[in-house]
């Protein structure tokens, strides 16, 4: 297992496609609150 594979296992990729408007709105809102999309999804996943 090389380093790339180890990294892929440790931090898997999450990818999605969102409508540009929704994504921009969401990112603007997150930026206002000093959050990232990753943090938002993590908090939503953890309830």
């Amino acid at each position, binding site marked *: 297992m090389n380093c790339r594979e180890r990294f892929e296992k440790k*931090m898997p990729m999450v*990818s999605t496609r969102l409508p540009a408007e929704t994504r921009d709105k969401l990112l603007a809102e997150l930026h206002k609150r000093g959050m990232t999309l*990753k943090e938002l999804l993590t908090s939503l996943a953890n309830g």
Partner: protein
Amino acid sequence: MSKKKKKITPSQKRYNQKVPATTFRMDPDTKQKLLELYKASKVTTWGIFFEELVGHFELKLISIEDARKAGYESGVSDARSRYVVYFQCPDCGQTIFINTPELKAKVRRLIAEAGWAHAECPKPNLPRPTPPKPTPSSINLPKPNPPVVPAAKPNGSQAKILHFLQEQPSTENMLNSNPNSKDTTRS
């Protein structure tokens, strides 16, 4: 051997602009939880699931704002019902709120003139309860001044001594009259 650059068709370009990809990395546990949520939500695609998550987030935002507004409005209406005094204008029938200092002062004056008081307070025409009479021991009277005794007239020998003392110059006068003494006041 060089790799051929992948060609992006115009339709792909348009699609990428319309629905851009959002990619990030997260720890496997959280990803697993997200996937479980996705499975439990029974939506058809991963993208729709994300859209719903985002919608949920937006709903949360809206609900917080709505809750704040609703709380503010209910507080204001509660305060109005408890504290606001108003009356109808006899001419136009509109409500006039007593909220300015001038109006409040007028109302206070009118109430004072009308003689409004606490229901439990004694009425002015009824005898008011008299305070208890003080006992003699509790009275603190001012102490009387000692009697002024008129000065006795001096007899013959005393009068002589007084006359002698009045004639004698004081030590100050004696110093000033001495020509040998230095005048310290002169500059």
